[in-house]
């Protein structure tokens, strides 16, 4: 569901600590940030640590721990959040393959709701 819309190519860019991408929630309703069980980003095939990923929704930025505890602020359906990912080394400009896995904790689903996208993005 909504896999191909997860990564928003136009929002990709380098920043001072690494890079950022635009991301939509692959679900048919909004959820509190605490229900986002996992956000896993990979760069050119290499999985980055989840605590290197910060998320910005509704103009507020959350690190992993803050996200897990945020039961009020919501990532609304269709809203484009910004993920900013710290990288150990400076990201070379140009095209990179970005993988994204989002796992949601949905009360009425016995199984994890895992969805993935992968896109080649241009970073400047």
């Amino acid at each position, binding site marked *: *569901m*909504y896999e191909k819309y997860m990564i928003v190519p136009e929002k990709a860019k380098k920043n001072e600590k690494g890079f950022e991408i635009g991301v*939509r929630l692959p679900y048919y*309703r*909004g959820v*509190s940030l605490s229900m986002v*069980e996992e956000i896993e980003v990979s760069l050119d095939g290499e999985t980055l640590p989840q605590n290197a990923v910060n998320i910005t929704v509704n103009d507020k930025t959350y690190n992993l721990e803050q996200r897990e505890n945020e039961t009020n602020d919501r990532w609304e*359906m269709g809203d484009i959040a910004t993920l900013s990912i710290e990288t150990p080394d400076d990201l070379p400009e140009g095209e990179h393959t970005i993988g994204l896995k989002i796992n949601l904790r949905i*009360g*009425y689903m016995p199984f994890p709701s895992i969805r993935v996208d992968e896109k080649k993005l241009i970073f400047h």
Partner: protein
Amino acid sequence: MSLNIKRAVSLYSYQEEFFLRKMSLEDCIAAAATTGATGIELVGEQSVPGCPKLPSDAFVDQWFGWMDKYKVTPVAHDMFLDYNKKKGHYWTDDEAVESFKQDIRFAHKLGFKIIRVIVNTTPQIIEKVLPFAEDHDIILGIEVHAPWNINSAWMAKHWEVMEKTGTKHFGFIPDMGGFTRRLPRVQIERMIRNGADPEIAKFVCEQHEKGIMAEYTIFEVSRMSNRRIDMAVAELSRHNTYVNPLSLVPHIDRIVHIHGKCLEMLEDYTEYSIPYKEVIDVLKKYGYNGYIATEYEGNRHIQDIYEVDSVEQVRRHQVMLERMINV
């Protein structure tokens, strides 16, 4: 001829366009009204930012303004219970009841008379929240969604609450997906695009149409293939159940609302998987007099390669309903 069954549209149906910001909430309401439907169903957490927080007075005014402008009525709000909202903590009954009450306040504020209760809600929670619902003039309906049916053990537990309390504020909301006679073609084709074996998929579809119990099909497929995607195809037969529409009859007075699920409305105004006419004939014969709300859900199975046209799918579904209701 029955004039008692009414038509609604769940704005859930337009989720693809709403997700992509091609349609606003007002656009969705307008599109629904254009079909001739007179009722609106809403997944609050989809369509209203911040839900289930109470919307602002400005939003509420605008909402009722839209209702007047497009000559439609709020019918049902769909709620969820996020028992595990907080990582590592499973809600107590009190926490669940509090969440539920908030949805009741939300629905009440926007003029809805019915709340679709998500299927994981326990009978105990419903019993506890019932007086609050009654106070707010809200009727609760547990969604009977495939693979459950209205007589399943879980639904029997909810039925016991209805019996015991004698309330008029709790009933069933069957989702028409529980009458999936043929497996949805859009779903099968998507899985073939994702790598499923077309021959196995054909076999599974045939078994399903014959009414073969899914366990047999799953066992046979497990001997044909050890690929997960092929097993997932076989399991479609378990999740997309068909039961005799007569199963609704003993509960007809307890059906408070209906979800008109559709995944693929054809040009001839039939749904590919669900024998609507047979179900609606039963509803008419036994006097169901609530709404059927179109719930188009095919987008998720075709969005990978096709342009989704929810507006057209909903239109066809409403034409179908209109014809069947008024024959």
